[in-house]
Each structure stands twice: as structure tokens, then as C-alpha cells.
């Protein structure tokens, strides 16, 4: 608002713009809160399982506090006007995930499994690496618009990353989905998690240039704007690539995430509802088409439609050439035994889901121990992260930053939906990880990098405008012409 009633001495209401405060101290306070909650949970697990406060409490608390502190100092130094909520929310989710992974490490049943290894120390290390990458993004990415220069390079890089798991000798087939690559001596890496961010950069750069052609050149038909045939090209290419991922990597989640992210960004760039209609139709057709001949997808759909039947087949040891999944039913039982308020930390039996209890099904472990109330809180926290991302997009001044923020937060939200929906039986289960919470190095590191980019955009968006508005006194009065 440039206009205001300008009389401090009289009774009048004043309309003035508020300078955006940096909010760093709010962030610090929330961050302290976000570190104390997991420490409380950690103590609670120890008391429930062993009856004593766990010995590692101090080192765990200090470790998480140190990680959060490094993140905060990085933001304070390199992005002082950034959103105050993103870092504390992500820290809380990461901390809760660490506690749940540590709690599952304590389970006698999981310890008796043949290839058991303590997961919590590794996850803490991944978190430290992730926050390191987060701060590195803040240091080296001074302006997110630099990414715009690498639009087509990032398309190429993302395709390479997506195709890497298919390279013989490099790709690793784990539990039926080929989305990992194995690096000798280092373990496995999920390149799709990084491709998510890089693809968002490509989509943002591409749509920023092409959005006018996509939005304006269209015919109106039955209340929908139908795009011209040649403008359908990009969406068809992305759709085809995501179908290829689905066929060759047999990973429904990654495929859905990339196509969904593109449709979200296309909709935001063009404001045309028809793209959403097209996107939904195309993804439904693609999913049904692929599911008709791909056995791995068929077992997932079967486990989704008849979880109890699949569980019985799995328990009976039926060998008819198809891997029957017992996990879908186990996850539902975990939620059910949690009830409204949960069994309490350390008092559930989520270890019955075996190896996946701390990765793909960690949400079911939370559902059992924290109940509906806890799951709702966790989902609200995810929702708040997505909301802050969209808010950043609204506040961003440049179209590239807007689209990138929408793409990143939309992709993040879509991933949460796909994983939570899969675990809760709303959609077929996919092999994706719950951001920040689930065990997995690639996921944690990539999502911290995503947070870094969002914080960078939000810092640019909320930074007070440098140049003062030109004085209206200097402007010419326009003359009314009769």
C-alpha cells in the first residue's frame, strides 16, 4: 500500500506496510522446542523398554541439538529473512524418525534377524550429512535464479539419474523395485530422490518460458480449455518417461511423483484446470495399462485390494511364482492396535513388520505407538511444511522462484500422500520413503537439500525490497479529457 492517511495528530486509521522482520529468534525458540520433543520421546522409549533413562540420551540430545544448531546458524548467516518454520518442522520430523528407528533397533525380534545392523547411528550420520548439504546449499546458492541457467542440463542430469538403476552392474534390485544403485564400499543410493529436485528445476525453467503458449493457445470446449495438439508434446513426453520408469524400474511411487509434480507445476504455470483433468486421465490410463502386464505391480494391487487374503497366502507359504506381501495387512493391524491414543513409545509391536518397520512402514510404527492423535500431528506437520512452501511461492517475486517453490513443495506433499496413502491402504503401496522420518540416507540427504533450496527462495522472497517506491508527488497528474 503506497497510500496512507498521514496524520499522526488526528483520529484516523492508518494503513501502512509492515516491514518484514527476520523472525530468526522465533525460529530458534521453535527449534529448541523441536529438539526437546524427540529427547522426551527418547527418554520415554528407554523408560518403557528398560525401566531406566537410556544411557545415550545426552549424546543423542546433544547430537540432534548440534545438527539443529548448525542448521540455524547457517540460516542466520546466509538466509536471514527465510521462513521461520521450515527448519524447526523438518528438524522435529527428523528427530522423531531417529527416535523411532532407535526404538526399533532395541527390539529383540529385529536383532535376531540375520542381517541386522543398528540403523539409528547410521541415520544420525545421514542427518548430519543432510544438514551439511543444507548449509552448503545456503552458502553456494546465493540466488536461486542461477538455477534457471541449467534448465536443460538439469533435464539431462535428471534423466541420467533416473536411468542409472537400469545400468547393468550398477543397479540393485531390492525387494522387486529397481530404484537403487550400489556404489561399492559405500552402500546403496536412491538416485530418484535427487532427481526429484533436479527435475523441479527443469520443469520450472521450462514452464516459465513456455507457459504463455500453453495457457493462451487453446480452444474452449465444454467449459474446459483444450490445448492445441502440438502443446500436448511436453506432457506426453513426461508421461511417457514416467511410464518407462514404471515399466523398467517397477516403481509406481517414483513414476507417480514425477508425473504428478509436472501436472501440478503445469497447472500453476497456466491456470488451466484442463491440465489436471488430462493429467489424471493419463496417469490413470498409464497405471491401469502397465498393471495389466507387470507382475510386480499386480502383486501390489492385489495386496491393496485384498490385504488379508494376501497375508494368509504369505503365511501359508504359497509358492505360485508371485511374491505375496504380508506387510500391507500388518501395517493395517499396527494402526488398529494403536487406536486413538496409541500404545505409547516402546510399547507397541511394530517390529512384527520386520525389516520395513523403520523404512517404508515407519508411519505404521508411529501409528501404533502414537495412535491416531500422533499420526494426525505428524501429518499436520507435513502439511505445514507444504503450506510454507506454497506460501514462499506466493511471496516470491520472480516466476522461476514461484514455480520452483511450488514444484518442490508440491512434490514433497505428493510424496507424503503417496507413502501415507500406501501404508494406510488408500492407494497401492509404493516403494517410496516418508521424507525425513524414514530410514534411508538418500531420502534424508535429498530432502535436506530440498529444504535448503526452499529456504533460499523464501529468504529472497521475504527480504525487504531494496529500492524505495518512487514518490507520487513527482508524478504528473493525469488530465480528464471530456
Amino acid at each position, binding site marked *: *500500500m*503506497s*497510500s*496512507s*492517511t*498521514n*496524520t*499522526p*495528530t*488526528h*483520529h*484516523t*486509521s*492508518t*494503513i*501502512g*506496510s*509492515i516491514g*518484514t522482520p527476520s*523472525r530468526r529468534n*522465533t525460529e530458534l525458540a*521453535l527449534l529448541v*522446542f*523441536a529438539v526437546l*520433543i524427540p529427547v*522426551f*520421546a527418547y527418554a*520415554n522409549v528407554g*523408560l*518403557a523398554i528398560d*525401566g531406566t533413562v537410556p544411557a545415550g540420551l545426552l549424546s543423542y540430545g546433544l547430537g540432534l541439538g548440534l545438527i539443529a544448531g548448525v542448521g540455524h546458524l547457517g540460516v542466520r548467516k546466509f538466509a536471514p529473512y527465510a*521462513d*521461520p*518454520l521450515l527448519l*524447526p*518442522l523438518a528438524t*522435529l520430523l527428523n528427530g522423531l524418525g531417529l527416535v523411532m528407528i532407535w526404538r526399533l533397533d532395541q527390539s529383540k525380534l529385529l536383532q535376531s534377524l540375520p542381517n541386522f545392523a543398528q540403523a539409528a547411528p547410521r541415520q544420525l550420520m545421514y542427518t548430519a550429512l543432510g544438514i551439511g548439504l543444507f548449509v552448503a546449499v545456503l552458502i553456494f546458492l546465493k540466488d536461486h535464479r542461477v538455477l534457471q541457467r541449467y534448465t536443460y542440463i538439469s533435464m539431462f542430469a535428471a534423466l541420467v539419474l533416473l536411468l542409472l538403476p537400469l545400468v547393468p552392474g550398477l543397479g540393485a534390485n531390492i525387494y522387486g523395485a529397481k530404484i537403487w544403485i550400489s556404489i561399492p564400499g559405500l552402500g546403496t543410493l536412491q538416485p530418484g530422490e535427487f532427481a526429484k529436485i533436479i527435475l523441479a528445476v527443469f520443469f520450472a525453467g521450462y514452464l516459465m518460458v513456455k507457459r504463455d503458449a500453453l495457457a493462451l493457445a487453446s480452444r474452449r470446449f465444454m467449459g474446459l480449455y483444450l490445448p492445441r495438439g502440438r502443446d500436448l508434446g511436453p506432457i506426453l513426453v513426461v508421461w511417457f518417461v514416467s511410464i518407462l520408469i514404471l515399466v523398467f524400474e517397477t516403481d509406481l511411487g517414483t513414476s507417480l511423483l514425477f508425473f504428478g509434480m509436472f501436472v501440478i507445476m503445469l497447472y500453476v504455470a497456466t491456470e488451466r484446470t484442463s491440465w489436471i483433468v488430462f493429467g489424471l486421465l493419463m496417469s490413470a490410463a498409464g497405471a491401469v495399462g502397465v498393471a495389466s502386464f507387470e507382475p510386480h505391480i499386480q502383486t501390489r494391487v492385489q495386496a491393496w485390494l485384498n490385504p488379508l487374503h494376501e497375508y494368509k497366502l504369505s503365511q501359508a507359504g504359497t509358492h505360485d511364482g508371485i511374491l505375496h506381501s504380508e506387510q500391507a495387512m500388518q501395517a493395517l493391524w499396527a494402526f488398529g492396535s494403536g487406536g486413538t*491414543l*496409541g*500404545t*505409547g*513409545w516402546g*510399547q507397541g509391536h511394530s517390529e512384527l513388520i520386520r525389516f520395513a518397520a523403520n523404512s517404508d512402514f515407519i508411519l505404521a510404527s508411529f501409528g501404533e505407538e*502414537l*495412535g491416531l*492423535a*500422533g499420526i494426525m*500431528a505428524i501429518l*499436520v*506437520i507435513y502439511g*505445514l511444511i507444504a*503450506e*510454507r512452501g506454497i506460501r514462499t511461492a506466493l511471496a516470491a517475486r520472480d516466476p522461476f522462484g514461484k514455480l520452483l517453490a511450488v514444484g518442490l513443495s508440491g512434490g514433497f506433499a505428493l510424496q507424503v500422500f503417496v507413502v501415507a496413502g500406501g501404508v494406510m491402504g488408500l492407494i497401492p503401496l509404493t516403494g517410496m520413503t516418508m521424507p525425513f522420518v524414514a530410514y534411508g540416507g538418500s531420502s534424508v540427504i535429498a530432502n535436506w537439500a530440498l529444504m535448503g533450496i526452499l529456504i533460499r527462495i523464501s529468504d529472497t522472497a521475504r527480504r525487504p525490497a531494496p529500492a524505495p517506491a518512487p514518490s*507520487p*508527488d513527482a*508524478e504528473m*497528474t*493525469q*488530465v*480528464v479529457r471530456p
Partner: protein
Amino acid sequence: MSELTLTVMRLGFLAVLWLFVIVAVQVIRSDLFGTRVTQRGSRRDASRPQQAARQTTPPPQRQQQAAPPSGGGGGGRQRRGAPTKLVVSEGTLTGTTVALQGQTITLGRAHDSTIVLDDDYASSRHARIYPDRDGQWIVEDLGSTNGTYLDRSRLTTPTPVPLGAPIRIGKTVIELRK
């Protein structure tokens, strides 16, 4: 560990988790920045002697205007049916009100105007509204480019303003109300 302690911790944890969510939402609420409307001053501290003092020693930014007729301004407010506030009813400032306490109100694009008009068709110093000796409010055009209109007629001389009559300046319409 006793069952009671664990139950208390279980419920306590959920409470703390939700408390965090609520605090986060409160932070979002306080983060909705943009414009803020603040009510300046209050009815209590606006006693007449202060107003009179302000009338006799106008703030420096208003010294370029002709001194308004003073003294009778306060008396006019006691009359029945006298306007008490000026309301912007059309234009970008719609909804803005200024209490009438015997002071001169200047309108224009200039920054030191009482009501700063964000209107391309307004001049820097467009018009002023002041009370005469009887407390009757007068509107006067200050030589503006596009003129000031009371009802439908363009002003040429200082003219008394009836209650509720629209004063049009560019795209902005203001009126006096009780």
C-alpha cells in the same frame, strides 16, 4: 516402570506434540504480514483544549496552507446534525475515516496531505475541507487540474458541504457523516 507413569508420559507426549503444532500455527498467524490498520489516538485523550492548541500551532508540514478559520471549530461540533467524521466511500482508500475535530483536512497526492490520495487524477494539493466560524464544513478546491465536484457541480468557490453529499476528486469520493 509403573503403568501410571507410562500412561502419563504417553498422554504427555501427545500433548507436547500438539502444543508444538499449535505454536507453529500461531507463528504462521503472526507471519501474515502485509498491511496493518492501526487506530491512531482515542476518544479520551482528544479533549478540546488539545485540539485548540493544535489549531493555533499547526504542525510544520501544513504551514504552506492558508490558516484555517479557527476558534469556532469547536463550537460547531455541539450543533445538532453536525458531521463527526469524513468517510472515503469510493476509490482505492475506500473505508478510510477521519474524525472531524475542527481541523483542516487537506486532500491530494502530496505526502503531507491529511488524506494522501493514490489517484492518478488527483493533484498534489487538490482540495481542503475546513470548518467556518459557525462550524459549518466548507470544501474548497485548491486550483486542481481536474477539479473537485460536489454532487454533480464543479466547485469554483468555497462551498458548504451538506451531510452525506458526495465530494468527488478523480476516482475518489468522500462524504461527511454523523
